């Protein structure tokens, strides 16, 4: 326990505490002082607060890494510059393309993209439904004298209504069922890849690659179990279904900051990396002294020299130049030339 406190990252801890209290404040305000809070979802709320704490803590620690810190700083600097409007529009476009639709995965493999897209869409929709419900931001009400119309209250304000038994009611009340179906199909596609792809079989681990898929399927199936129970079993196993689903979901929430699912939050950095490249190209490209061709942005090369220095690497040379000024091809050629010279001096190229 003492070691835990000794190794605790104080900045990250404070930020995580602030994030957790912010969630509690948002729950209090959004549910109108708990007036619309659904007490049956309390355990989910506790799990969510823990997840927010963990994610904020890990995110903060992650941002303290020299290269991540520099990228974060540069992304913010480039975004909030005189190019704000074009860069914001570009980032929004990429957000839809690469974060919501994950199109970049299609270039890795089409089947993989389909599987990932189904899983991610199912998860994101499920979050969009369950978080406002858990926080008491959304609730449904009936009005006196009319027990057939459901009114959707958002932050306590009436928004839209629908008749019980209507198509709208069917689609809304089964929102999580649709999510479960998407996630289950997606996870099954990903599991098939992991069972048949030789490369994945060689490099995968249970904790990083199988456990997330198993958890997602467990959440989906136990969730579907609740629907199955009230649709076909008249609610006879409701208690069991609800408890088992809650246990699996809370396990997922608690594990969210530690395991593979943290990539959901890291992925947004891809937008920053893209912006960094775009602004860097506008500022000027670096030319390799060996190939005489442009190979990266000069900003990137200059920043990498700073980052590597902070990390304890020094690729500077006696003549004041730097090994990092070379393109990857230039570096390979420099190595080959140095090797050639040593062989030549020894008088024997082989043997």
């Amino acid at each position, binding site marked *: 326990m003492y070691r835990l406190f000794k190794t605790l990252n104080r900045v990250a801890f404070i930020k995580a505490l602030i994030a957790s209290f912010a969630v509690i404040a948002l729950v209090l305000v959004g549910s109108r002082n708990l007036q619309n809070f659904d007490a049956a979802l309390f355990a989910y709320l506790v799990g969510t607060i823990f997840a927010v704490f963990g994610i904020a803590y890990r995110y903060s620690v992650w941002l303290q890494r020299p290269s991540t810190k520099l990228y974060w700083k540069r992304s913010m600097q480039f975004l909030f510059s005189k190019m704000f409007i074009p860069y914001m529009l570009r980032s929004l476009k990429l957000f839809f393309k690469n974060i919501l639709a994950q199109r*970049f995965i299609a270039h890795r493999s089409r089947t993989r993209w389909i599987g990932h897209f189904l899983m991610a869409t199912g998860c994101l929709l499920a979050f969009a439904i369950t978080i406002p419900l858990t926080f008491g931001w959304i609730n449904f009400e009936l009005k006196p004298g009319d027990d057939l119309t459901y009114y959707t209250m958002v932050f306590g304000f009436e928004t839209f209504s629908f008749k019980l038994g209507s198509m709208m009611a069917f689609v809304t009340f089964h929102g999580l069922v649709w999510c479960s179906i998407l996630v289950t199909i997606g996870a099954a596609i990903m599991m098939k890849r992991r069972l048949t792809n*030789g490369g994945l079989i060689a490099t995968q681990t*249970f904790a990083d690659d199988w456990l997330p898929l198993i958890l997602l399927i467990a959440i989906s199936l136990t969730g579907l179990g609740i629907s199955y129970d009230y649709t076909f079993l008249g609610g006879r196993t409701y208690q069991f279904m609800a408890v088992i689903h809650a246990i699996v979901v809370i396990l997922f929430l608690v594990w969210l900051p530690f395991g593979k699912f943290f990539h959901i939050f890291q992925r947004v950095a891809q937008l920053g990396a893209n912006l960094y490249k775009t602004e860097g190209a506008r500022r000027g490209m670096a030319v390799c002294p060996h190939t005489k061709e442009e190979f990266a942005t000069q900003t990137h090369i200059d920043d990498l020299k700073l980052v*590597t220095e902070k990390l304890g690497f020094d690729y500077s040379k006696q003549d004041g130049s730097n090994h990092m000024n070379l393109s990857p091809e230039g570096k390979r050629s420099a190595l080959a030339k140095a090797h050639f010279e040593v062989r030549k001096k*020894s008088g024997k190229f082989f*043997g």
Partner: protein
Amino acid sequence: MSETKYNQEMAFFVDMQRCIGCHACEMACAECETNGQESMIHVNYVDRAVSTQTTVQVCMHCEDPTCANVCPADAIHQDDFGVVHSADTSRCIGCSNCVLACPFGVPKKMEEAELMMKCNMCYDRTSAGKKPMCATVCPSQALYYGTKEEIEKMRPDSVPVNSFLFGKQEVNTKVNIMMPKGTHQLIIE
């Protein structure tokens, strides 16, 4: 997951002066299942205008990999055998830090896929006790995978070296290059 049969007595030996630029290693590399049919090995002319010299480059699997250190997404992982793996596909944000920081010029950025990929010493094969694809097809043995005793017997006038000096930075690697006897380090001016 699957039990590994990685043989730590086996090592990788590169002798770029033996490279004849046949590109057989490139074709073989694309067969490695961990790469998804993408070739990760580099074969290029050193200075085409003045020489026919070609060079071949696999990942040297540094003891303290610069690529992993500069990765902002913590996507590059070194395992217990010292193999530096290709970027974790779920984490890599395609920033190219590793591509530009690697002193050997090894990682490749797959632009459309927003992913860095690199040689992981054919982990699907080496973890099953087999040799990497490139080393099995190289006709001139510029790439060799075997024991230290075997290479010493085959190349009595050479010695495996795994220390490099790039400017002021010393880099030690898992992969060796074959140098004249008595050499301890390759200095890249």
